[in-house]
């Protein structure tokens, strides 16, 4: 679906945020990107959206090289929606309704279609009650929800979320995850960066660990967390359930099954430990 081939990207001040990175994302995947502060997650996302131009290396979208022409970029951005890490940088309009409809207006949708989609997004994120408020008076979490709604309405094939769980209350996060799972069921490709290993473990089907602009490891969640060296190097920690399993040496019982899920572990623990 989208592919980076040996891409290096430097900021104007020569900080290499992404170094010789290759990454292939297939349609319908559900990927979490883990990595400490400054690992290059946000920079990677801006590369995938064609906002940053690859210094060396190439970006492919649906098998075609993205040449950074106006047409290519529009095509790419139409299909890849990115929710920025900081909603303050994303929110542009003064009213919530205007903000959410901004992308649709750019794509010149019909007025009633826009209204239907915005109303639907307002409902999904449960922010219909703040739709009349000016955006600069919203709380940070509310801004975050508005910025997510602004991307959801565009109905992109690939949804990229940069730490969507930061600053949201637990109920909202779990609602958001349900929403993302729904979208995934409908065939969307979802890419999410997060600092929450527990969330990454329970949600993702594939995890990419980054550090200093390179990919340390890319694989199934259980592959990632069974590699303690990588976890340590990337300044991460083990998911709570997984850690318990390691302490009880349970994960070794799953030798024949490479992809141990959170639910598997919980089931096993329940079966063997509860009286």
């Amino acid at each position, binding site marked *: 679906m989208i592919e980076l081939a040996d891409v290096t990207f430097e900021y104007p001040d020569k900080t290499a945020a992404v170094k010789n990175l290759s990454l292939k994302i297939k349609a319908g995947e559900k990927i979490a990107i883990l990595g400490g502060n400054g690992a290059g997650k946000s920079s990677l996302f*801006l590369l995938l*959206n064609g*906002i940053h131009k690859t210094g060396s290396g190439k970006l492919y979208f649906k098998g075609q090289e993205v040449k950074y022409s*106006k047409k290519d970029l*529009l095509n790419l*951005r*139409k299909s890849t*929606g*990115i929710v*920025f890490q*900081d909603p*303050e*940088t*994303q929110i*542009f*309009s*003064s*009213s919530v*309704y*205007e903000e959410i*409809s*901004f*992308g649709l*207006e*750019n*794509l*010149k949708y019909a*007025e009633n279609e*826009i209204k239907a989609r915005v109303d639907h997004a307002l409902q999904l994120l449960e922010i219909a009650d703040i739709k009349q408020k*000016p955006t*600069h*008076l919203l709380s940070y979490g509310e801004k975050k929800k508005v910025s997510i709604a*602004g*991307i959801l309405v*565009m109905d992109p094939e690939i949804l990229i979320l940069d730490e969507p769980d930061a600053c949201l209350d637990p109920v909202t996060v779990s609602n958001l995850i349900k929403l993302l799972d729904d979208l995934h069921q409908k065939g969307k490709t979802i890419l999410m960066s997060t600092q929450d290993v527990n969330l990454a473990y329970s949600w993702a089907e594939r995890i990419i660990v980054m550090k200093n602009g390179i990919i340390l490891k890319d694989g199934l969640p259980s592959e990632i967390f069974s590699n303690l060296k990588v976890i340590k190097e990337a300044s991460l920690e083990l998911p709570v359930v997984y850690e318990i399993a390691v302490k009880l040496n349970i994960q070794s019982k799953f030798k024949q099954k490479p992809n141990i899920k959170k639910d598997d572990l919980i089931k096993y623990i329940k079966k063997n430990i509860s009286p």
Partner: protein
Amino acid sequence: MIYIDKYAYFNRLKDVHPVEKFSLAIFTLFITVASNSIFIPAISFAIMSLIILLAARIPLFFYAKLLLLPLFFLFAGVLSVATNLNDQDMICSVLFTGHRFCVSASSLNEAVKIFTKSMGSISCLYFLVLTVPVTEIINILKKFKTPILFLELLVIVYKFIFIIFETMDRIYISQKSRMGYENYKLSYKSLSKLISSVFIISLKRYEDLYHALESRCFTGDFHFYQRKYNFSKINIFVIFMFDGILLAMSFFSRGQF
């Protein structure tokens, strides 16, 4: 103070058709600027202020603060127009730093004219800014086939002003919370730091914002959601009557007042 445009969305006239408000502001502005009297701008100022305060229900304190802003510059300008060095037919004069500053009847008249004209025009513009969201102004200008480049520039400059104010506000709060303004010396230092960093930070914020716009398929042409408004026959009638009377008055009173 930063969020002038908040009122554009929440005033009592928010449901009035923007074209009506736009034409009232613009027609009155033209008549005020074109008039050669003191009387006409004074009427515009009075009526516009009354509409802003009573019809749109903008708080008096807020409006007064807004007026104070240009008044500061206006006084400097008016003062320099009113006074001349060593005028012949002066009314009064002041001796200051060895120079004789004189005020003549004609220069005083000119100064008062400029003053009322400026206040009248400012009240028209404030009426526009306080009751019509900028997006609606863009939509209207678009209908008049204004070049897209100009509109993009308008929106971006507008947004940038807010970003600068907001950044300033944030830096100030952050400095204050860390005792940046405890005494004169510290205030001086903090203020100089604020001024030097506000533009750099604003530029970075602006760049990030532009990235976010681009990622949502923005190509330089702003398309804003257009709310449905209804024209009101009464409003249109009142606007035309008001501006008609004002125009007639300025026509018949040319140079009289």
